[in-house]
């Protein structure tokens, strides 16, 4: 039998393999859909330093129509399935439509920059089209998540998505879109131009999807709470299908410095990237090519590198043959004198905002935060931020509560596999007088142009030695601070107890001895009590 080969579109590919984008089962799907759209909204506002206002409403639309539709890929497609990293994605029971699966309408509104009208169809109806293929820290990286959510809605409910957006001009544009899955093209079902009297700016996305909200609810609420923790400058509103309102109100309008776009660092390039750069470059010699397309490469570094790799500075990069390109990539990685990438393309939260966020959402008695200096792995810069919080409203669960974030996204699944958790487990907390029985929460935030996620679903982070080291150092710093706090508190406690003992017993000694000695007047012990207090403060 002759084997048939066919090409499939990107939309088709993700349609068949939606698991790898996180749409594993009805409860996970609804969580991921909300998450992807909220992240897009936050990015849209933050990129122009607008304190985000995000409104999310999930409303009940009706029973799920056809059992299993949308979850079971058509037969015979298995030859196209990718090797999946997470084995549980393939568990059949998770793919089944549960009884609680319902149709919901999801509406997400933001006050972001808005999408220019001509880009709206592609931005929401074409997979892997977007504004995010640049080297700077952003929540999304693939231009995939939001569209996957819409695609998922379409395949489970056959309804078009409604997009309303304005960039703050006098008109608002409304599109009803569907995705042509086989061709990966947007299908415009309807288009309206509305008058924007209030000069509103922002984007509204509304579509229907099947999901299991009640199973997903705890994770969704966790998600909002933790998002509020690392975005203390954002207003988040969520109305759930029962009409319950969850509001997370900003406590500051301070926002982190936005990241700058950056060129690729020589240590991080691969052959594919080199070929693309060569294709688009206007420069006619290697020196200019290196100087202008790579991060932290100036005239001197370029010359040194060309000497090191035996390349003529005047060679036209377009003349490099395939072997030379491969060799160039190897030499780029071998050359020791490139400066490490700078962190201007990163936008960590900063110690103040992280502290503010932790205090706002988990209301601890004590919090310590720390930001590490930028570091790199494989040519990608990253910054680790750590925090530790104690007491207050943090419950003592017999184990540390760990909050993991990457580029200001809370990571809620697969905690056990995450590098942060491994570092936390490997640390000797006793050294810092911290035990798992204490009400302690630990926060780890990783910022990078390329967060080493293990899956497209953005759930947990790979165990890289560079990351591991930085996380460990960051945690040690905050651990030292909590140790100081705990020992001070212990001291104050001890002092209070000590004084308590004296003020409880000295009056009784006075009273009993007066009776025993047969005297009338009880001796004045006020002076003694004062002297213990003085003694106490000297000790402190």
């Amino acid at each position, binding site marked *: 039998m002759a084997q048939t080969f066919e090409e499939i579109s990107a939309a088709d590919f993700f349609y068949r393999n939606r698991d790898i984008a996180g749409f594993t089962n009805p409860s996970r799907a609804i969580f991921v859909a909300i998450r992807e759209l909220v992240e897009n909204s936050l990015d849209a506002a933050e990129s122009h330093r607008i304190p985000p206002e995000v409104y999310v409403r999930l409303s009940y639309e009706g029973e799920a129509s056809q059992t299993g539709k949308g979850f079971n890929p058509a037969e015979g497609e298995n030859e196209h399935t990718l090797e999946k990293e997470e084995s549980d994605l393939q568990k059949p029971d998770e793919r089944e439509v549960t009884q609680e699966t319902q149709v919901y309408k999801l509406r997400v509104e933001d006050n972001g920059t808005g999408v220019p009208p001509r880009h709206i169809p592609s931005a929401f109806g074409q997979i892997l089209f977007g504004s995010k293929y640049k080297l700077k820290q952003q929540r999304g990286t693939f231009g995939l998540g939001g569209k996957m959510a819409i695609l998922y809605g379409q395949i489970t409910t056959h309804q078009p998505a409604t997009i309303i957006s304005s960039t703050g001009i006098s008109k608002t544009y409304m599109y009803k879109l569907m995705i042509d899955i086989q061709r990966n093209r947007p299908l415009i079902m309807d288009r309206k131009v509305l008058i924007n009297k209030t000069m509103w700016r922002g984007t509204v996305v509304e579509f229907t999807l099947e999901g299991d909200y009640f199973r997903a609810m705890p994770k969704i609420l966790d998600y909002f709470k933790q998002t509020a923790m690392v975005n203390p400058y954002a207003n988040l509103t969520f109305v759930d299908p029962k009409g319950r309102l969850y509001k997370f109100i900003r406590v500051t309008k301070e926002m982190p410095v936005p990241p700058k776009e950056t060129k690729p660092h020589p240590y991080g390039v691969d052959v594919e990237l080199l070929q693309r750069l060569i294709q688009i470059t206007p420069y006619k010699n290697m020196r200019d090519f290196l100087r202008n397309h790579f991060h932290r490469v100036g005239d001197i570094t370029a010359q040194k590198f060309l000497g090191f790799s035996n390349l003529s500075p005047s060679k036209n990069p377009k003349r490099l043959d395939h072997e030379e390109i491969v060799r160039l990539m190897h030499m780029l990685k071998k050359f020791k004198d490139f400066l490490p990438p700078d962190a201007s393309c990163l936008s960590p939260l900063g110690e103040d905002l992280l502290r503010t966020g932790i205090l706002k959402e988990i209301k601890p008695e004590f919090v310590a935060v720390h930001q590490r200096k930028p570091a790199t792995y494989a040519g990608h810069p990253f910054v680790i931020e750590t925090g530790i919080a104690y007491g207050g409203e943090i419950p003592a669960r017999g184990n540390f509560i760990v909050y993991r974030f990457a580029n200001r996204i809370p990571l809620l699944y697969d905690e056990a596999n995450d590098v942060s958790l491994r570092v936390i487990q490997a640390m000797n907390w006793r050294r810092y007088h911290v035990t798992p029985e204490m009400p302690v929460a630990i926060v780890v935030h990783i910022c990078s142009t390329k967060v080493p996620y293990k899956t497209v679903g953005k759930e947990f982070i790979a165990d890289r030695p560079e990351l591991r080291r930085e996380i460990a150092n960051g945690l040690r710093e905050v651990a030292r601070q909590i140790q100081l706090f705990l020992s001070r508190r212990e001291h104050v406690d001890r002092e209070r107890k000590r004084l308590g003992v004296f003020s409880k017993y000295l009056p*009784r000694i006075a009273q*009993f001895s007066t009776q*025993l000695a047969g005297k009338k007047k009880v001796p004045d012990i006020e002076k*003694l009590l004062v002297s213990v207090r003085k003694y106490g403060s000297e000790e402190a």
Partner: protein
Amino acid sequence: MDRKKHKSSVSERKKEVLESLGDLGGKIYDQLDKGTFPAIDMPSRSTDNIMYDEKLRQFILGDRRVKRSARNVSHVKPFTQLVWAALFSNELSSQRKTSTLRDVYYSAQAYEMTFKDQQESNNIITDLETILGFSREDFNIFPEERSAVFGDLTIEYTVPGYEGKTLNLTSHPDGVLIGPALTSSEFVKTSADKVIAIEKGGLFTRFIEENVHRKYNSILVLTAGQAPRATRHFIRRLNEELNLPVYIFTDGDPWGMHIAMVIISGSANAAHLRELNTPDAKWSGVWATDIVNYKLPTDPLDDMDMKRLYELQKDPRYKDPLWRREIKTFMKIKRKAEQEAFSRYGLTYIVDEYLPQKLEETK
């Protein structure tokens, strides 16, 4: 005062106790009044400060002293408990009421002076004993009573409601409980010329039935196992005030031997106290050598018994040749016998044969 007509040991001692309790209160009061933290010092009761005094023939405390100061945060609570205990004892003694260690533990709660447990309150009472040099019975705090006395001794009560009343200790055939009322009584007269202390209740009853008190002119004391302090003090008074020699009969095993020894030489636990021992009392049996000589039915010594023998061998109280010989004999024969073992020769054998022989032998 009417009671003062015979200057007795009992009322003298009561007065001394009350005085010393008041002195303790005054000392603490004065320190507080001067604006200083009150402190009390007392002999240390730790094992390395307990030594055997050859002259007194009992354990005593050495020279090392410990200081309890209200200045020290870890002392202030026990210090308060101590002052409270002194006040409580003072009230008991002056109101002529009696109490038990268990009472002390609960009474404290009425003063919001909670003790962690019985042990803690017992320790505080022992501290008070150490400071004042009186035993807790002197403060009217008594243990649960179980020992008894029988014989021709007339006593006069001093307890409230019975003052001046007398009692002859033959008046009840089960014997008279050695309790607070009896221990605080004055001795009036006796025809006895010796005291026989007996470990076990069964034998005590047999001796009464067989008229041992009359046949051998003796006062019988039941120790009911290890003699309580009040009983030990009572035996000493019989010996000292009435000049009666004391003979002790116990089971023929290391434990019985030690019951006799504690009556004679006191215990390490009571090293801070005096006048609980009767140095001239005699252990009359059942000896290890009696087991051999009288061919008594026996049980083998078990591991605990053997271990006890090794301990006793090292004990300074056991240095006299008689004791050493008996320990050695026990170790050699590895057998023990109860007092009841004499019944194999008939119920009255022990009274008619064994007792007179031993009284003569240990005279």
